[in-house]
């Protein structure tokens, strides 16, 4: 068995397991009562296909994993997105029934690591009682985690207390942060997607933890507000993703800062250090503004807000909202207070910086030159070492490089042939222009290659921060192309995405 590689210190809790046999149920009467209550807590076995970003035309590497899910409504099981990501086949099992039930994904939300499954034939689960949700549990109150973790095949229960309630990065995508609850109940690989229960009500979904080498008894659960948001989002039949303010704040602790920004103490207001032009507040907020409140709820100097009785990151206000929702902002600019309302929307560019799932890798091959769009999966798979490419990835957001290149394209590899043998050292570069056309997305590569510029006999590819253009004679390249495709066993020239 192996843990899926995730955020360095954090390991998500689905684990690959070779176990196929399920022990027949043999429970005593006392346990039976308990177990009946938990009949809706199921084991999910996933067969997955890990996409191959190095040979993107291949189907990928078969693998598998196992996690937990639980019944929340009529033939609806809640689990973690990472339990069912890249799955080709899903099977649900209950603790008292040896029968495997094929299942499928109904909704998946990678940004908050939640998913809803249904059994292909839901009749078996019709009589079962769905679990119900509670609220945010108080610190130092007892919870139990129920699921199918490593160490056996039957259902397992562990117990602990609520240790902390905080905004945390979610390791599934590595770029999303939401409210999370830390518990000291043992949460192990396989617990993923399982319910964490207090007084018979679900208060969270177990989803990640630190490995024992880093910290002890630190497990995290996705709390009810995040779950409820997900359930509400999918009510209309699609998942719309979180919305973002897409502005970064810098705490006001310095007296000079306070004076310069026109604040007179009182602890209210945080400095807006940066605003993403493509984000929800792109046209409204500016660098150096002081954000005073969100929906009339005052923002403190350190960017926290009092929300539902707790001090939380101010983004929690935005977190609970949906695409198209309004947000009331009050801010100070040049000493003048302004109140306004913005419409919240998704902010896409950052998604590329996170791990992606359920995506067939996109690519285009031309005369042995392999073009792929930049994203985290690609950078990791190719272990890109080119400084321009690394800079592009590292500063895609911070230096707003996404404005000029929404989807940077990399020349990831060059499949050697007589036609390209002199340019093979240029693999792993960022593509700047092809035949005079600026490359802003993978689709541009296709049209630009077909473009006949000033020198129609040549295909001229300019790379970022490289010393010479790559030049192919069009007739030679086109003659070599089918041969290269055959030699390197590439069934299709390109996959540019669904549509």
């Amino acid at each position, binding site marked *: 068995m192996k843990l899926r590689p995730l955020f360095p210190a954090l390991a998500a809790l689905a684990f690959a397991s070779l176990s196929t046999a399920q022990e027949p149920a043999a429970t005593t009467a006392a346990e039976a009562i308990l177990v009946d209550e938990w009949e809706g807590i199921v084991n999910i076995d996933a067969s997955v296909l890990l996409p191959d970003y190095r040979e993107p035309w291949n189907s990928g590497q078969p693998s598998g994993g196992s996690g937990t899910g639980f019944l929340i409504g009529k033939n609806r099981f809640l689990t973690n997105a990472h339990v069912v990501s890249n799955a080709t086949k899903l099977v649900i099992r209950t603790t008292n029934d040896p029968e495997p039930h094929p299942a499928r994904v109904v909704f998946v939300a990678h940004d908050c690591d939640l998913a809803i499954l249904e059994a292909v034939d839901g009749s078996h689960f019709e009589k079962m009682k769905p679990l119900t949700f509670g609220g945010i549990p108080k610190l130092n109150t007892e919870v139990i985690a129920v699921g199918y973790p490593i160490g056996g095949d039957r259902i397992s229960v562990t117990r602990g207390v609520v240790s902390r309630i905080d905004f945390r990065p979610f390791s599934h995508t590595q770029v999303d942060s939401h409210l999370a609850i830390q518990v000291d109940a043992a949460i192990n690989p396989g617990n993923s997607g399982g319910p964490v229960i207090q007084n018979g009500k679900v208060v969270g979904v177990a989803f990640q933890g630190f490995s024992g080498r880093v910290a002890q008894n630190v497990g995290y659960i996705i709390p009810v507000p995040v779950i409820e948001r997900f359930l509400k989002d999918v009510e209309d039949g699609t998942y719309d993703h979180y919305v973002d303010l897409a502005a*970064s704040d*810098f*705490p*006001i*602790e*310095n*007296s*000079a*800062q306070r*004076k*310069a*920004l026109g604040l007179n103490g009182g602890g209210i207001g945080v*400095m807006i*250090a*940066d605003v993403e032009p493509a984000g929800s507040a792109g046209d409204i907020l500016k*660098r*150096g503004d002081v954000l005073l409140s969100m929906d009339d709820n005052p923002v403190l100097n350190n960017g926290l807000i009092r929300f539902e009785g707790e001090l939380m990151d101010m983004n929690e206000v935005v977190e609970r909202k949906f695409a198209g929702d309004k947000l009331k902002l009050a801010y100070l600019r040049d000493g003048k207070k302004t109140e306004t309302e913005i419409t919240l929307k998704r902010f896409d560019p950052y998604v590329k910086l996170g791990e992606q799932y359920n995506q067939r890798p996109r690519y285009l091959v031309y005369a042995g030159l392999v073009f792929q769009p930049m994203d985290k999966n690609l950078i990791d798979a190719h272990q890109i070492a080119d*400084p*321009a490419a*690394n*800079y592009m990835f*590292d*500063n895609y957001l*911070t*230096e707003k490089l996404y404005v000029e290149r929404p989807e940077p394209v990399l020349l990831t590899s060059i499949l050697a042939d007589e*036609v390209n043998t*002199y*340019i093979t050292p240029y693999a792993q570069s960022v593509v700047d222009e092809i035949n005079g056309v600026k490359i802003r997305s993978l689709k541009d590569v296709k049209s630009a290659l077909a473009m006949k510029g000033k*020198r129609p006999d*040549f295909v*001229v590819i300019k790379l970022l*921060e490289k*010393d*010479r253009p790559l*030049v*192919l*004679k069009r007739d*030679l390249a086109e003659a070599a192309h089918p041969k290269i495709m055959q030699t390197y066993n590439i069934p299709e020239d390109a996959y540019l995405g669904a549509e």
Partner: protein
Amino acid sequence: MKPFFFLLALLALSSVQAQTPAAPKFPLRPAPAPTQSQPVIQTSALLKVNVTYQSHSLRIPWQKEGAGGRRGLGVVLEGNRILVTGQMVADATYIELELPESGQKIPAKVIAVDYEANLALLAPNSPAREATFFAGLRPMQVDTSTRIGDTLVVWQTGRVGELIVTPVRVSKVMNQGYVVENASFIVYEAQGIIRSEANSFTLPVAKGGKLAGLLLRYDSKNQIATLLPAPIIEHFLKDVADGKYDGFPSLGIEFQITLDEQFRDYLGMKPDQPGVFISNVTKGASADQAGVKKGDIMMSINGASIDSRGDYQDPHFGALSVSHIVRGKAYVGDEVEMKVMREGKELTLKGKLTRKQPEDYLVLPYQFDQGPKYLLNGGLLFQELTRPYLNSFGNEQQGGPILRLARIAGSPDEYEKKGKKKIVFLSAVLPTTSTQGYERLSGQVVDEINGVNITKIEDVAEAFKKPQDGLHVVKLDQFPFILHLDALKVEQDNLQLMNGMFRIGSLSRLE
């Protein structure tokens, strides 16, 4: 087991006098007679050179690192001058010369050093004792006649000045990087086994009793010695001799090979046409001033035809990088003539050779003997970006601010176009009253302070003289983009920084 026994024996011996003589079962064997096949001779052209050095701290720029020592050999030249490698004297605080046989010492000083060519010339620094010290020494001549296939000898001295001679055979002559970044010249590559003696720097290599080169590095695994060759030494000495050291000239071009037939077709090059593709021309450098443009095909320099790899045929060494024609064979101020092809036409371009000084670079390529420039105000530490600063991070920090700063060093054009002469950045924040809330910042490029455009560290000092309404406003190129400081508190903190815990002697080094 052996070293263990040896150690025991030693311990026993050292305590012989204190204890009764029961311990030493192992009689002290006489030291083995030298078994080298070479005869033991003395030379009067070598000196021991002892250097104490102390480098500046790159990240805490007002401090110096601990002092260290280097021992090497110097070659005695005409006029009581001593030749050593540049590395030997880098950041030197005290240099002395020592006669190998008698152990007599006198202090010395550097009279010329070129860290790119890795050469330094020393002179004694004791007029009274100079004559007697040098009385028994004979200067060595420089010999540039080495060819591929020649056998040279590496010279080392033993404990009492006996000469240890090791033969090596020259197998290649080529262009190679020396010690500091972007400095490459020709080297001799020679094969042979060199035993390591106490002196680790500046081993002279001789041919027929004359100086053929200095050992630049030795790869003991492959037994390959890389030698800093006589032609480069001769160039250095000639340059020094006229009283004004100009350094090695450069054209200021980057070129790409043109072996790729499709690329040649695209460039309009005929099948047998010589030349390389000029991929970059440094603004203001020799080639730029002579009119060379990016995209030109450089066909010849000073009459030497350039092949598709960028080599010319050297009468002595065969194919050699064309850069040797400029760097190794010509001097600053010499005329240079280049033939280029531009849009199908051949042009002859003429100009004078110059040298880009290290301080002319946006990011200083190397720095020795002087401390890094900095300015500390209220706790904000500003520095000019240098290669040594970036290199001090090694592989420990490949992402984030260091990656971003390294990229600026790699492609400076964008910042040079903006009129920046140097990259000034916020390198650290010391915790003071005026920097409250800013303590974790580092690595942001500074664009403007109090409305003054920052193009070099000196601008920072000027800009901080002009606070507005008692506030300093610092604009950065990265998050959080803007910092405010209370001008009065800054002054109070500055006093604290100088006299308090940090004991910072000076709040800036701008020279």
